């Protein structure tokens, strides 16, 4: 298979400017002759759609939500990184680049990450110009805060709603273009397949979620900005609608899926309260600065937390990692919590939780200080759990919240299918095996505002693609397949609901391929997933009709794709016989429980090629070449 990352030559710091000068341009009068389809309207999709339209391209943008403003980028709280060095604390493009490569445990592509750091400064300027109300100092200048994995303050924020404010900036730019007639928006419309003609991406088949109508849309290029696949675990911090369908359909049409096993687990989420739980909520990690993490020493100790004296408590992070204590890195804290719960020492309903206790901090600093520091978080905790964390300790547990893997793309963000571009969380390119905080927003906007608008022109100028008619037999054939699949869901009329299947798949994925993975568990999952998938297709119950708003039908399609995708994720985790970043294979750890990389064997991007649902995919390897940085053991001690 042809497999070229198309990384420009030259020193890493000059690659992007050199590339921008080398690639071909489309003249303004010709841009209006090209149609672009953008699927997804989060930070990456909305920024791309708006910018392409401003340049003169004719854009169609699709989202399954009722408005482009609802995309899940909106839920990001913390902030967005940029190498502005406004704090005069030694930050630079190079440092942001290095921190990102190191944070990703040396499994990302140097050239892409450098470019990301480089354009980060333009993002802030652009967002300010759009009216994003970033936090300010009394001087009137922009404020910064520090974030994990960095020794400088480079994170820009808008209260606890940075994602929302950045998304509204991109959404407003998009709405401006919609109003001006440059973008045609299709809300409540879900992409269900990709159409290729002569090997090039030429359009999509969608379902109107209100009328159920299945239709085709043709274009000169297709851009997927459809987010991550964290909901394969059923419970995650993702929105309920987040799904793998768009990128999975593209994979089944020949696009390569890269590093699907790189999934990030966040240590401080509010635990599951029961079978009814539908999603999980993140609590800021900053709480670990003052909270002490513990569980009872003995399994089955059901006393209330304030009745358990210190000698019966196990402050396990402080015990196991005396140097870092409660501030041990994300992956270590997550795995340690799982371990104590596996031993039966977990607390709260279901026993999957650990205490995060502020008693000592309140005694030391006083209630008011703690209230000042974390008041909004305590309030959020109380809203969800009904418990007052000033009186009794919080309960926390790790949860899936971001996926580093995704469709393989080259330096131009084009997949191996010509004319198919992939942006944001949906691609694999910038975060390696682990993403740093405040970098997801940065990548989404970098891709959409500052990378794709340049690189897509090169494709048009070089290929001069011809937009086919939607009457082309390929469109008709794919439409028929989509309609057939819809009919199939409605005809099974089995005994179990879609949610039941999704929950079972999620539990399996979480148990066998979640925070810690081992060969036996992964092999077990590979036995069980196909069986569950078969049962799904025989026994799922989807009521209603295809020609109406039918939320069960939408959901069934997404879960059916997770049933296939989950198997690939597990295959990738089994193949990657090393620990790196968020991918922790129990067989490969140092004596103190740190991930042990194997650079000799696994310093590559695993890109999988589809061969058929019940056939093994083919593994392609893109070797990661490090010219600028030296591979080192990641250490935050």
């Amino acid at each position, binding site marked *: 298979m042809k497999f070229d990352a198309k990384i420009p030559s030259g020193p890493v710091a000059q690659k992007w400017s050199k590339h921008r000068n080398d690639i071909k341009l489309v003249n303004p009068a010709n841009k209006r002759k090209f149609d672009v389809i953008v699927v997804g309207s989060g930070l990456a999709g909305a920024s791309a759609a708006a910018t392409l339209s401003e340049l003169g391209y004719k854009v169609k943008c699709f989202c399954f939500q009722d408005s482009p403003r609802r995309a899940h980028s909106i839920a990001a709280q913390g902030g967005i990184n940029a190498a502005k060095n406004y704090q005069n604390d030694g930050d630079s493009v190079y440092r942001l680049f290095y921190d990102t490569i190191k944070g990703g445990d040396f499994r990302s592509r140097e050239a892409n990450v450098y470019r990301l750091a480089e354009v980060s400064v333009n993002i802030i300027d652009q967002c300010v110009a759009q009216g994003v109300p970033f936090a300010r100092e009394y001087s009137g200048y922009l404020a910064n805060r520090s974030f994990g994995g960095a020794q400088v303050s480079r994170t820009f924020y808008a209260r606890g709603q940075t994602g929302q*404010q950045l998304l509204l900036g991109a959404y407003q730019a998009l709405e401006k273009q919609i109003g001006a007639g440059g973008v045609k928006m299709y809300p409540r419309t879900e992409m269900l397949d990709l159409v290729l003609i002569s090997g090039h991406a030429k359009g999509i088949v969608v379902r109107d979620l209100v009328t159920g109508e299945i239709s085709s849309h043709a274009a000169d290029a297709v851009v997927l900005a459809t987010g991550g696949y964290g909901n394969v675990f059923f419970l995650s911090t993702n*929105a*309920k609608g987040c799904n793998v369908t768009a990128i999975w359909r593209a994979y089944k049409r020949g696009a390569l899926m890269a590093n699907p096993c790189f999934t990030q687990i966040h240590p401080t989420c509010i635990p599951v309260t029961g079978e009814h739980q*539908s999603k999980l909520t993140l609590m800021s990690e900053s709480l670990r600065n003052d909270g002490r993490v513990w569980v009872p020493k003995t399994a089955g100790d059901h006393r209330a937390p304030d009745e358990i004296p210190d000698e019966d408590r196990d402050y396990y992070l402080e015990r196991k990692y005396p140097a870092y204590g409660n501030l041990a890195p994300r992956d270590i804290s997550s795995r340690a919590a799982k371990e104590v719960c596996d031993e039966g020492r977990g607390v709260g309903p279901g026993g999957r939780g650990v205490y995060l206790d502020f008693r000592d901090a309140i005694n030391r600093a006083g209630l008011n200080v703690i209230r000042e520091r974390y008041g909004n978080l305590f309030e959020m905790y109380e809203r969800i759990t009904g418990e007052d964390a000033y009186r009794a300790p919080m309960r926390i547990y790790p949860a899936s919240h971001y996926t580093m893997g995704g469709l393989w793309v080259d330096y131009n963000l084009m997949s191996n299918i010509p004319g198919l571009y992939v942006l944001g969380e949906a691609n694999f390119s910038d975060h390696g095996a682990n993403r740093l905080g405040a970098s997801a927003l940065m990548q989404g906007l970098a891709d959409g505002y500052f990378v794709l608008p340049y690189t897509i022109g090169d494709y048009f100028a070089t290929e001069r693609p011809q937009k086919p008619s939607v009457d082309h037999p390929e469109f008709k054939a794919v439409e028929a397949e989509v309609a057939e699949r819809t009919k199939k869901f409605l005809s099974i009329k089995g005994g179990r609901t879609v949610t039941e299947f999704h929950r079972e798949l999620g539990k399996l994925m979480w148990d066998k391929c979640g925070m810690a993975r081992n060969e036996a568990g992964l092999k077990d999952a590979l036995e069980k997933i196909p069986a569950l998938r078969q049962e799904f297709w025989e026994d799922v*119950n989807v009521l*209603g009709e295809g020609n109406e708003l039918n939320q069960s039908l939408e959901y069934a399609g997404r879960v059916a794709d997770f049933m296939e995708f989950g198997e690939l994720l597990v295959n990738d985790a089994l193949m990657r016989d090393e620990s790196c970043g968020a991918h922790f294979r129990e067989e490969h750890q140092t004596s103190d429980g740190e991930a042990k990389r194997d650079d000799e064997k696994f310093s590559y991007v695993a890109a999988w090629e589809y061969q058929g649902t019940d056939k093994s995919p083919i593994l392609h390897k893109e070797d990661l070449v490090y010219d600028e940085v030296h591979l080192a053991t990641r250490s935050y001690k």
Partner: protein
Amino acid sequence: MNLTLKVWRQKNSDTPGKFVEYNADDISPDMSFLEMLDIVNEGLIKRGEDPIAFDHDCREGICGTCGMMINGVAHGPLGATTTCQLHMRHFKDGQVLTIEPWRARPFPVIRDLVVDRGAFDRVIQAGGFVSARTGGSPDGNAVPIPKPDADLAMDAAACIGCGACVAACKNASAMLFVAAKVSHLNILPQGKAEKDRRTLNMVRAMDEEGFGNCTVMGSCEAVCPKEISLDFISRMNRDYLGALWRSKQ
């Protein structure tokens, strides 16, 4: 706990709807309101009945997708809360809950509790933006913004566009939503150049969509999950008057 639900069921926008009674049994107080509906829906599917359609997505109170009238109150009895963040511990065993979609002519019902809020997007298209093209922006620190202004703009920008303000208003007025966006952008120096155009165009678009007039009763502010202040409506009225006067000059 066990509850009785009276839920608005409507097949589509062309078919008249009606209330249908359901039992929600064995509900845990730790469930969110939407998780309670999930349970009811699972039961309906098992019995071969169409589940209740409702909009939802992030389930953490920020995307603005969910929303329903619970016993006549938008987003239910707890203040400053979206429906997804409302938990069942705020209800009593045996309680009867009437659940309806947003009721406003500019928000037609699509199915059951799902309404079409496209009118909000069209109001934004009329001027809810700064016409800054991508690229060529000055440095983020080129124009200092006094902290109180930035904070006030942020207060307005916190709106999640859920539509509760419209649903709560007896006139189905969208003044709080529009005022929040107008204020967010008009307060900031970046939004000043288009201030008058924005205000006039957004108010016109709001009227054209069929939203009613504001009589400053404050129901909108009372149900707003982000506690957007009525003050922004006064501010928009002032901006509107100024813009109107200047446009006549």
